[in-house]
Every structure is written in C-alpha cells, then in structure tokens.
C-alpha cells in the first residue's frame, strides 16, 4: 500500500482514531500492519511472515551468543541473497539488461536488515529482547516503517512498542508536527518527485546526445530520488508520530553538505548508521595488520562498506561501482583533510554535489555499459546550448527550475530549525489540524499521469 494513496489515508485515520479512543491498541496496530502489507500480494506476505517467524525462532531457540548472530546472518542475508542477488550470481539478466529480480518481495532489504540489527544488539546486550512474539511481530511489522524504513534499531522503537502492550501508550500532543511531516512528504513525493519522474525517464530513455540534456537528466534524477525517498521517510516518521511512536530522522538536507562524508551523514541516515555500526566498525577494528598499516585498513574498510552499500541498493555491477566510488571519494576526502587545507565551503559543496550527481548515473542506468555511454555524453560537453524546438521549455527556464530545486532544498533546511517547532506549538489546534489534514487528502487526490511507485520500494 503506497503512502500516497487514499487507502493508506483511510487506514492511518482509522488507526489513529482507534489509538486515541479504542481498546487493544497493540492488536489494532498489528491488524493495521497486516492490512497495509497485504496490498503487496500473498507471495510477499508469505515471505514476510516466514521471515518474521524464522527470526523469532532464532531468538527462542538459539542462545544469545555468537551462534545467534551467525544464524541471523544466514537467515536474513540468505533471504536477501536469494530473492535479490540470485540473478546476479547466476548471471541472468532481465529484458532491460538488469539483474534486478522483478518479483523481489516488497521491503525485504529493509526488514531483513532490521532483524539483523535486532539480533546483534540483543546479543551484544544493548537492548532487552521482545517479551513475546506479538511484540516482536509489531517491532518488525509496524506499518509506517515496514517497506522502506527508516531502518530502526530495537532500542529506538521496541521500548515504545512495549509501552503500548503495557497499556501505557500516550498520544503525542503536537499532532500538527506529525501532520506537517506527512504533508511535507506528500509534497515531495506527489508534487516534486512524481513530476520529475517522467522527464527523467524520457531523458534516460532517449539516450541523450547532448551534454546539456545528459546533465539535466542526472541533476533531475538526483532530486527525484531525494524527494521520492526523503518524502517517503517524512510520511513514515509523521505517520508514526501520529500513532505515538517516534522514528529516527532519515534525511537532513544532504545536498547542502560541503563534503562527501557530510553528505552520507545526512543521506539515508539510518542505513549509514547501520553500515557504520555493523560493518565498517567491525572491519576497521579487526586486528588484521600492524599499527603502521591501520590507516590503510581503515580506508579499505570505508571502500568495502560503501561497496556493500551500493550492492544493497541493487543487484548490478553499476550499483557496486556506484558504492565503491562513494567509498573512494570518502577516502580521498579524508586524505585531503589530513594533508591539505580545507577548501572554502562553496567549493567543497560544488565538488560534492557534482560528484554525487555524476555518480548517480550508475545508480539510474540499467547496466554499466549504458552508464559509461551516458557519462561520456555528459563529460564530452558536446551539443552546446540547445535551441528551442517543438514547444520545449527555453533553456533559461530549465536552468531556473534547477536553481529553484536547490532553493527548495534550502527552504527545507530552514524548516528543520528549532524555531519552526515553536511556531507549530503555537499553531496547534483544530484549525491547523483541519488545514493540514485537508491538504494531505487533496495531495493524495492529485491526478497522476504515470504510476510512479516509491523508488526505494524495489530495494
């Protein structure tokens, strides 16, 4: 069930109302989560229920030591590996030359990682385990974050879920905050990402022969994927807030970052934190080399982690290369900051965003060959300034539009300042609730010319 659907709006409204006045709140959340995921189809549901059951069996049947971690890795990485990377390992490509399996169960990458984090944290003693299968199920299936994150740790949501089971649930007072996040997410998804999608699709489809068009496609895709995924995260966090549960922030205006490290600290934050804690730190801290070479080990760990990050995003060598390039850029930036003076912030920002936009071509392309051809066009600077033909928008309008996208990003940054929260507190009341609910409903009803599922649904 997509967040930008009327069905979701109804489900959320009924669940929020039930949470406010009804009995058996935990049961209601479980039922709502099952209804939410049922829209994905029986196959996906079966895989999900199987994954939850297996992970619960791991908890009850295997002692809380290294063996449980091994079992959790085998089950969860095995699930992702089978469904997501089977084609890549077997060398079987789809009709578009991509390894991506079209029957990938919805959200498998997210709920598998979440289960993995759960078991590791329990074994390491960072959190108490779920006391019952129902608690564990709701921790995994809580519908606002089920399909595409944020990837939560047990210490972030499990205590909140346990309070619901203990009948100690309390609604957050600042409903306007949750509604505002939902509206912000819908604006990003429905108004911006879905509007950019057909333009990006067309540009990548025609294989542009001018650098102008190729750069335009890459820049617009960068914003499309940002608006799409951060919009999804905003709706998830806002919906959860309305249900009385706080989810962690997932994006913090990454395109204002002045370095690649900063960008990754602000882009898909919960995944970055997951990779840092469960992959990078173990790799970097492993006693493999002498102290003299620890820096080298550290850098290798960065590249390996980011390469894995790329692979997590998609089964394809283009994703692997994309991730590896992010890692190499981080190493480069680390070396620069170690041996050279820091560049002025605007230069750092421009270099970071140019690098990110350019490498996202690997992310958007169906395969490596396509990506290299596209990059060749981008970096050739051939074609010059385009003439206006066939009702097309004049180039100055297009450039103004791109500048406008960066301006929107800056406005979003301003909206995240603490002062805005004070404004919301003052505005809290029936009028603002009615206004935000109305805007959210109308945004959902805005006509779509193409069906654009959330991009991260396929990961």
């Amino acid at each position, binding site marked *: 069930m997509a967040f930008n659907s009327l*069905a979701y709006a109804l489900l959320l409204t009924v669940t929020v109302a039930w949470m406010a006045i009804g009995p058996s709140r935990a049961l209601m959340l479980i039922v709502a989560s099952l209804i939410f995921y049922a829209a994905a189809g029986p196959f996906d549901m079966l895989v999900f229920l199987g994954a939850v059951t297996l992970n619960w069996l791991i908890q009850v049947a295997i002692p809380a030591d290294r063996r449980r971690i091994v079992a959790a890795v085998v089950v969860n990485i095995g699930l992702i590996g089978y469904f997501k990377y089977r084609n890549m390992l077997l060398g079987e490509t789809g009709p*578009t030359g991509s390894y991506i399996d079209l029957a990938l169960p919805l959200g498998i990458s997210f709920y598998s990682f979440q289960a993995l984090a759960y078991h590791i944290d329990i074994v390491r003693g960072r959190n108490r385990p779920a006391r019952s299968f129902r608690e564990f199920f709701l921790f995994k299936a809580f519908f606002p974050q089920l399909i595409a994150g944020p990837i939560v740790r047990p210490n972030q949501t499990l205590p909140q879920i346990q309070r619901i089971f203990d009948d100690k649930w309390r609604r957050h007072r600042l409903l306007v905050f949750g509604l505002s996040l939902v509206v912000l997410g819908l604006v990003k998804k429905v108004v911006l990402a*879905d509007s*950019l999608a057909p333009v990006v699709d067309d540009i990548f*489809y025609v294989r542009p022969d001018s650098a102008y068009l190729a750069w335009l496609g890459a820049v617009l895709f960068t914003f499309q994927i940002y608006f799409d995924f951060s919009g999804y995260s905003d709706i998830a966090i806002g919906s959860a807030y309305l249900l009385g549960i706080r989810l962690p922030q997932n994006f913090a205006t990454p395109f204002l970052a002045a370095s690649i490290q900063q960008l990754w600290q602000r882009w898909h934050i919960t995944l970055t934190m997951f990779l840092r804690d469960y992959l990078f730190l173990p790799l970097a801290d492993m006693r493999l080399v002498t102290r003299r070479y620890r820096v080298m080990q550290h850098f290798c760990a960065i590249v390996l982690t980011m390469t894995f990050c790329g692979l997590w995003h998609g089964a394809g060598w283009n994703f692997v290369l994309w991730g590896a390039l992010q890692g190499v850029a981080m190493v480069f930036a680390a070396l620069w900051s170690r041996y050279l003076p820091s560049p002025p912030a605007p230069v750092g920002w421009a270099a970071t965003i140019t690098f990110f936009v350019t490498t996202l071509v690997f992310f958007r392309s169906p395969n490596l060959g396509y990506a290299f051809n596209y990059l060749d066009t981008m970096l050739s600077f051939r074609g010059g300034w385009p003439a206006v033909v066939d009702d097309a928008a004049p180039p100055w309008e297009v450039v103004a539009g791109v500048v406008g996208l960066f301006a929107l990003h800056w406005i979003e940054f301003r909206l995240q300042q603490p002062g805005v929260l004070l404004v919301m507190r003052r505005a809290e009341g*029936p009028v603002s609730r009615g206004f935000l*609910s109305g805007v959210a409903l109308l945004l959902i009803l805005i006509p779509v010319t193409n069906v654009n599922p959330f991009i991260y649904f396929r990961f």
Partner: protein
Amino acid sequence: MSFSPLSTRLSRLGRFLFGGILALLVVDFGLRLIEVTPLWRILPVVQPILGQPDKDFGFESTPGGRGIWTTEHRARVQLNSLGLRDVERELAKPAGTFRIGLLGDSMVEAAQVGQQATFAAIAERRLRADGYNLELINLAIAGPSPIRQLWRLERRGYPLNLDLVVANSAASSFLSGKLLDDSENPAYVRMGNGELAVGYGFRERFSQRHADDLIGRLFIGLYQNSPLFRMLYLRSTEPLSVLLGLPSAQSASQRSVMGLPPPAPEAARFACDQATAALEPMIHLWRDHRPELLWAATARFLDDMAQSTRTHGVRLLYAIRDIPLPPPDCPATSARADLLLAMDREFASRGIRLIDWSAAVAEVVDGPAEIPRLHGFGIHKGAGHLNYDGHRAWATTLIGVLRRELLPGTASQDSAAATHPDR
C-alpha cells in the same frame, strides 16, 4: 475517560472544518498558480474538460475552453470562440480564400501539442508560404464515433462556408460499434420496423437531464473554472480500486524497472500475422457487408455524409487511417488491396473520394516501419497520438494530398516535400 461539553466539541469540529475549507482554497490557488506560470510544464495540473453536455451532440466543445492537456504529453490547449481547436477565425470567408475544413477525432484535434505544432497549422503555414490563399480549419473533436464528424460538420463547419472537407477516421472506428451506440452521442439505432434512425439515448443520462437546470449549470461552471473541483470530479469517476490506490506498489514496480522502456516487440516477425488478423474484420465489413447491422449503420453514415456535403455544395475527401500495412512478402498484401478496392467502391458510389491515409503517410516517411515513431512521446514513443515528428509528417502528407487532388501540376513539389518530412 472524560469528554468535553457538546458545545466545545462542536466548536472544535467547526474550526476543524474551517481549516479544511482553507485547505481547499489553498490547493485550488496552488493549482491555478501552476497553470499560469512556466511550472505547468512539470508540476501537477488538472487536465481541462473542454466541453459540456449537449442535447443534440452528446458532448460539445465549449467556446473559449482552455487549459493544460496532460495525457501523453503536456500542451496548452485553447479553443477559439467557435469552439474549435484552432486560431480565431471569422465566420465570413475572406474574399478569394479557399476554405478547407479538417474533420476528425482526437488524432486531428491534437490536444497533445501546441496549436501551432498541429499538422493542420503546419500545413496551412507551409501552403500559405507557397503562395496559396487558403485556410485550413481544424473542426475535429475527440471521440471514436465517425458520426460525431458529421454532426460537427453540420453545426460548426457549414457556417464557415467551406469549399472542401477532409475527414479523417480510423478504420477501426467503423468496427467499434460506436455508430450503433447512442449512449454518449447520436447514433443509428434500429427502429421497430427494422429501419435505422438517429437515436438520442444519451439524453436519458443524468448529466444530460440536468445540464440546463441551476445545479447542472453550477456544476459545469465549477468543473470548467475550478481546477480543484475538476480534480475531485474526475477522481470520483474512477473505479473504487483506482481511487483508493489499491493497485499495489509491487505490481506497479513490476511494470517498469525505474522507468526503463519495455522490451521492443519483435515487430518484423509478427507484422504479417498482426496485419492479417486486423484486416480480416475490415474485409468482412467492407467487402462482405458483415455483420449486417454494422454494415447498415456504416452505409447509412456514408449516405448521410455524402448527402449532407452534396446539399451544401462541399467536396469531401475521406481519409481512412490505420488500415494495416503488411510487409511486402506477406500474403495479406493482396487482402489489403481487395479491401481498398471494396472500400473505394463504396465511397466512390456516393461521390466521396477515399484516401488511404496510412499508405500516404508511409510514402512520406520512407515506409510503414517508420510510422510508429510518429506516435507517442518519450518513453511511450511508438503508440498513441501524434508527436511533433508525426504532425510534421502528416502535414506533408496532407499537402501532398491537397496538391494531387485540387492543385494539379505540382508533383515535383510533392516529391521535394516527401524527402523532407520534417520540414
């Protein structure tokens, strides 16, 4: 659990509803703002409804109707004061001007491109640049029934004192049964005595019955002037599962991998089979006059069209498009020739000149294999309405047809134009 007094709760509800009304106004304003700025090219807009219920016609264009067309491709659409997808025209024909009316469906109406990019406008510009004093007036209106073209001609065309009419219909439109279906617009229905007569069954529709009363006029006024109301109305007409957004995200993602194109059909292998299958019902209709009722309606339509144009002293060229063009070595080639012979016989016997439009377009664009590239936009190229290349090619085709039919002695110019279809 303690409850607030009733008055407090009512007050909260009232303020909540007030907030909702504010949301309606803000979103409506936002949608209007997008339409009047360059943002219309990319941000969400609500497609206009360019017409309204009509007692005689079923659904008729509203003079001055305008908006942003969004289906397939975005374009500003503006109907003129006569309700035509055309520039402003005087009803009285300027002295010495040859007036040609273009009849057709949505393919000719061409809401997917700007008015100046339609093939009618391109052809007029090019012919006028070549020194011909003529006007090509676009009379087309969307809708699959050919009978709409006849009514359109009688209501909008004849008052313009046309000298020539070029109609354009898809071959499939005679097979669709729309000529016999009066649920949306006039059609031929069989009476008790077995004869065909024009039926107006659509007048029983709720929208028709209330079109002229206060509520009906208010409703039409709202959907024509408020993008928000139009959006809500259009969404309310969708099936419940679509309205709820229940086609799952999973199935949507299965349709395309991040917007990548679907695999190209193996056109060459299936072209012959497809052409053979598509030609069969056409041959049944035009040569064998089967099914009987469908043929009776088709014949009646041709009779009425011929009679109408004859009465008004207007010459009629009828272009039939989408008659499949099989590959050269396909047995269906001879079947196609038989079909054209039969069709030509039926049209000629009524004094109407038939034009094999797809074949004429194919000549302009170096063969039938090139025709798909004239249709659709971007990722959907290959199917749908005409794109910009398509309008240029159709304009060249139309100029060629007009020169051959009406302005003899310009064959060399035809050839020159044919080699430059994108001119």
